């Protein structure tokens, strides 16, 4: 019966699909009915709206923290993430958000003329503060980007550890680049390359839509790919979460090391208990750590030197440098066409020499910032290598504080949790059933 219903539904949907294609072949009536839109200047957003954003963020953070740490309700967290997706995503259209606010803060720090609204500062700082105390509950059920990925994580596979560690460095590199470009006033990279904002607005750059779709398709099999391997704000949250005062735990009480949770996290964020190393392992580990510590400064210096080569390529994103390049190419006859920007420049009667001088100054600034980016990347690499060289010590199964997004998926699998919920009397019951 259910199979027949399924087939009937399939047929219905195929007809609808065909209609959506055929619709293209049927000409629309009468173009003369098309209303010519009148252009108008949109009014400035009301100040109250900024505080609605702040209040709704604070409320969501509070609820997420409460449901993750206190009531340990996966269902509530899931419903909250859907609500966050609808409100912060589709209603507020993904802007403003704490992730993008990183750039506003960077711009405000480096450009005194830019005044960042207080609400923006709160949006940026509040999730960081909450994370410092309670872990990444922002990621659990508040961030709409995380929420949409959470929804599609259906058949997650485990990413090999060695690959995960390498890919997890990308958010830090992205963070450095985003701060650099924001600080120079060149571009807000995080906003420009947000893969999901086009979904929220049902409109956007085609390439980014395709990128977002690819991320979601990947997200079906690899949990939260953007959060884990791209999100620059997540890099900051991961650092703070590592030192959080409180954090989600897998069992509500003591862990009985039943191993039932060890592979259930779709994000690979459950650390197993460690085994005491042998003296030989300890010696090897110390040697490895010493080598890494000695190499760390060299890595930082090497990447600083590499950063000196980046000033030119990085500056190509700057609109003034792009304009100077275009104007110069036109003068040299290297391009047969002009651009709107170069036409406007010539119409404005600005001397080309001034433009070149300004572009040269911008490029020099990027040269210095390229070194800073190189130092940052070197530091990140060095710290990562050091952290991998330090042997941890765990006696039970714990969420990896850096990677755990406090989503609560692991709760159901824990027999101690099942006892708490009254579903079983004794953890042994669950263990016997496996």
């Amino acid at each position: 019966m259910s199979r027949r219903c399924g087939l009937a539904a399939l047929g219905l949907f195929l007809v609808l699909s065909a209609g959506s294609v055929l619709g293209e072949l049927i000409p629309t009536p009468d173009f003369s009915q098309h209303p010519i839109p009148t252009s108008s200047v949109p009014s400035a957003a009301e100040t109250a709206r900024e505080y609605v954003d702040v209040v709704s963020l604070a409320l969501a953070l509070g609820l997420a923290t409460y449901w993750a740490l206190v009531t340990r309700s996966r269902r509530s967290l899931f419903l909250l993430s859907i609500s966050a997706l609808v409100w912060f995503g589709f209603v507020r259209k993904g802007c403003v958000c704490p992730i993008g606010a990183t750039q506003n803060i960077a711009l405000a720090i480096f450009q005194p003329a830019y005044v960042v609204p207080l609400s923006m500062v709160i949006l940026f700082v509040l999730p960081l503060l909450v994370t410092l105390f309670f872990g990444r509950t922002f990621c659990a059920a508040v961030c709409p980007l995380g929420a949409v990925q959470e929804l599609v994580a259906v058949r997650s596979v485990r990413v090999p550890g060695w690959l995960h560690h390498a890919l997890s460095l990308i958010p830090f590199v992205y963070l450095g680049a985003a701060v650099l470009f924001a600080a120079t006033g060149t571009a807000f990279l995080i906003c420009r390359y947000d893969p999901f904002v086009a979904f929220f607005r049902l409109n956007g750059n085609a390439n980014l839509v395709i990128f977002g779709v690819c991320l979601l398709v990947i997200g079906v099999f690899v949990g939260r790919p953007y959060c884990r391997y791209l999100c620059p704000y997540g890099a900051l949250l991961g650092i703070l979460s590592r030192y959080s005062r409180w954090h989600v735990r897998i069992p509500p009480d003591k862990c009985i090391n039943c191993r039932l949770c060890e592979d259930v996290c779709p994000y690979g964020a459950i650390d197993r208990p460690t085994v005491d190393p042998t003296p030989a392992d300890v010696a090897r580990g110390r040697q490895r750590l010493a080598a890494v510590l000695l190499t760390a400064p060299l890595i930082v210096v090497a990447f600083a030197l590499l950063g000196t080569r980046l000033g030119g390529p990085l500056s190509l994103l700057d609109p003034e440098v792009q304009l100077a390049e275009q104007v110069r190419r036109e003068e040299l006859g290297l391009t047969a066409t002009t651009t709107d920007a170069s036409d406007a420049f010539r119409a404005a009667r600005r001397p080309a020499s001034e433009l070149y001088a300004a572009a040269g100054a911008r490029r020099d600034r990027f040269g210095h910032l390229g070194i800073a980016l190189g130092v940052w990347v070197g530091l990140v690499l060095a710290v990562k290598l050091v952290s991998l060289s330090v042997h941890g010590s765990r006696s039970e199964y714990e969420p990896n504080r850096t990677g755990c997004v406090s989503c609560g998926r692991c709760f159901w699998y824990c027999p101690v949790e099942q006892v708490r919920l009254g579903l079983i009397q004794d953890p042994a019951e669950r263990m016997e059933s496996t």
Partner: protein
Amino acid sequence: MNEATLRARYATFVWSSVIAAVFSAVVAAALATNFARRVPDPLTTPSYLELKEQLRTQPDDEPLKQRIRQLDLALRDDYFRRRQFAIFGTWLLVGGIVLAVAAAKAAAILHRRLPQPSANDDWGDPEARHAQHALWSVAGFAALLAVLAVAAGLGFHSVLTKDLPSASVARKSEPSSGSPAAAAPAAPGSGVSKPSPQPTDVVASDPQQPDGSSPVTQPAAEEFQRNWPRFRGALGNGISVDASMPTAWDGPSGKGVLWKSPVPLPGNSSPIVWRDAVYLTGADENQRELYCFDASQGTLRWKWTMPAGEAAPEPLEVTEDTGFAAPTPATDGIRMFVSFATGDLAAVDLSGKQVWLRSLGVPKNSYGHAASLAVTGQLLLVQFDQGARNDKLSKLLALSTASGETVWEVAREVPNSWSTPLVVEHEGQSVVITCGDPWVIAYNVTDGKEVWRSKSLRQDIGPSPVAANGLVFAANEFPGVSAIRLGGQGDVTATHVAWTADSGAPDTCSPLVVNDLLVLQASFGTLTCYSAAEGGDPLWEEEFDDNFRSSPGLAGENVYLFAESGKAWVVKATREKCEHVAENDLGEECVTSPAFVAGRLYIRGKEHLFCLGTDVAGK
């Protein structure tokens, strides 16, 4: 909930998810197809632009206007229809995806099973196992970042070099007076070439087409070749792409003369043709003008007059042979560029509106400045040779066609000359070839750096170089003609001169390549023919009882020779002989070179501009 119910619900959710996924995939495919077929700006489709282009030449064609309106409507209709479909499809897609995901999750929850860790899974020390691999993967990632950084640095190429003209130099060059003025002539014997003044006056920098539209793109190379945009045509070789040209005319009776129009001011510049107009300059001691004639009717559409400026400190002397308007104009399809014996340069758009004006200073030139202009890409090339060699006043300038600002300039170790530069593409490099005593020099178009030079000339240089089949032909009365192979570096006198000859070399007329032959027209009337590849002895010589200053032209198999008296011969040049086709008379003196466009020949006589050809009736 019993097992059967669970299984039924699970199946329902799975099927729902599959159906919704298929539906979403179909909608996504339809959206992708719609996106692929979209036209970002419907008003830039080639068919539409072509019709608009036709309308420019046929402004009164009502059926054409109707077609344009219909096409315009159809394009806009299609554009908005696709947008509407994209919006509708997006909603469908969102709904389908939401349904697919929700059903899949519901099925996953129903199907949730407890994990089954292996009883004998001895994982050892996970820290130790992962750490080693992770260290290497992080190191690999670091190496990848380093490679990317190096590649970005190495692959980075900027046209903004350190030696761009600075703002302070540009300001110093501008005269204090706001009106355009001929700058004081450079002091002879100073030994230093002063930086050329930047444009002193710019009117509108937005060049307009005659219909008022403002094109921002240069026409394609094919259009340049179909027209006659500079001295001796698009490639500077005097060869028409249109083989069907008139061979018979008689100025006094009007036979074969479609029209002739008086030119207000005298000049020895040759006509250039762009689309439906013919352009000429004329000048005397007091005035300098550019004329635009209708190519079909010969009517004067407009004339542009150079604004009067301050009088030069000393009167400019030019010979009658040269006059004040000897350099032939040039065009980039958007603007007309003109120069005069006074060293004044100007850009005028196709509607006659001045775009920019510039004065290079009155040149120190014994006969008067006569080198014509050349355009390549967005550069206007000006060969400004003057004075004696030791004066070090000569230079080659590349100006921005849009603004007249100097992009680069290079000093030349030559005295005054009257040859026009030639731009040649060879093995991916674009070079401008110049002639001046004693050098033929090739410069890189991009930055003016010298590529090669050959010591192949002597004395006053009038003829302009031509190029064909990897060879540059530079000729002058002394020492003769040289064929120089392209592609050299540095001084190629000893290595790249394929052949030289001294018989029949011209002192004014530029050479002509006719298939595998090189034809030289001497001023005193002798037409000499060589093998272009091998040189050697002349294949033949033909005497014409007249004097020549006009450079020969080629259309099809016919070579056109215009003599000073106004007589003109049409001949066929073969290896064996010079075969006479026709002898004609323009009816007035002629020292300029012909322009060949669309089956018509345009030539300037002493007082008139002629259009030679046959009308539809064959007259």
